[in-house]
């Protein structure tokens, strides 16, 4: 491999790793935000959505 081959190998690997890490970070963030939103949903639902038996006084 000539000198330019080593240069392109280094630059290629570095930017590939940085792009992959940035994308992975975005995906992890999106996943956590989706989980937080899913925890939010049942709490935001009105209590009338619950089955009647659960609401009935014992």
């Amino acid at each position, binding site marked *: *491999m000539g*000198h*330019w081959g*080593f*240069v392109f*190998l*280094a*630059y290629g*690997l*570095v930017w590939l*790793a*940085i792009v992959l*890490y*940035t994308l992975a*970070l*975005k995906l*992890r*963030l999106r996943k*956590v*935000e989706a*989980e*937080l939103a899913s*925890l*939010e949903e049942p*709490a935001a639902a009105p209590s009338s959505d619950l089955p009647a038996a659960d609401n009935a006084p014992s």
Partner: protein
Amino acid sequence: MSSARRGSTILGALALVFILVGQYWGLVKAPPDAYQGDSQRIMYLHVPSILTAYLSFFIVFVGSCLYLWKREPRDDILAYAAAEIGVLFTALTIVEGAIWGKPTWGVWWTWDARLTLTAILLLIFVAYLMLRALIEEEQRAAVSGAILGIIGFLDIPLIHMSVYWWRTLHQPPSILQPDKPPWENVHPSMLVALAINFVAFILLYFYLLSQRIRLGEKQAELRRRRLYGRR
């Protein structure tokens, strides 16, 4: 869009501009080195990478000390975020060094003092990330991580001084020499290429750090909600 998110987007855009200019300068405008030829262009990544890694582990050190002192979760989130990105930049430094070493030294790797200490730095912070992932109890993980983060940072002065203390293969710094200004050692257009790439890496670093801190905050919120329900 919140002001923090807007700031992060601006940082990302600025980093991209500097990266593009830096790559052009490093690959096209800067002349080849008189002895090393074009493979010296790898230095425009290698030097900014290790300096960014040092900065990152300094932030781990500060965040860890603050966490042990004040027990504020935000300091732990900062240290954890910086450790992860520091590992990325240290690993990149070693890979770039190996690719530069093959045409220059004739080997991908040698057990030189600086190389070995840098590999130890990487291993310490990989251990840090493993420790954080394995300990389930949040506070224990944070305290253990903080102690290891402080110990790990102490390797950096050793790495810096290793080229003076042990005369092995890795050369002493060309730019930060105490007795000579950098322009006496390095061609000005090489210095410009290095400076632009250094700024690009620092901007990229703070962009990634802001994103990773946001992830850490959301993860902490998720854990809190799972433990205590909605508050």
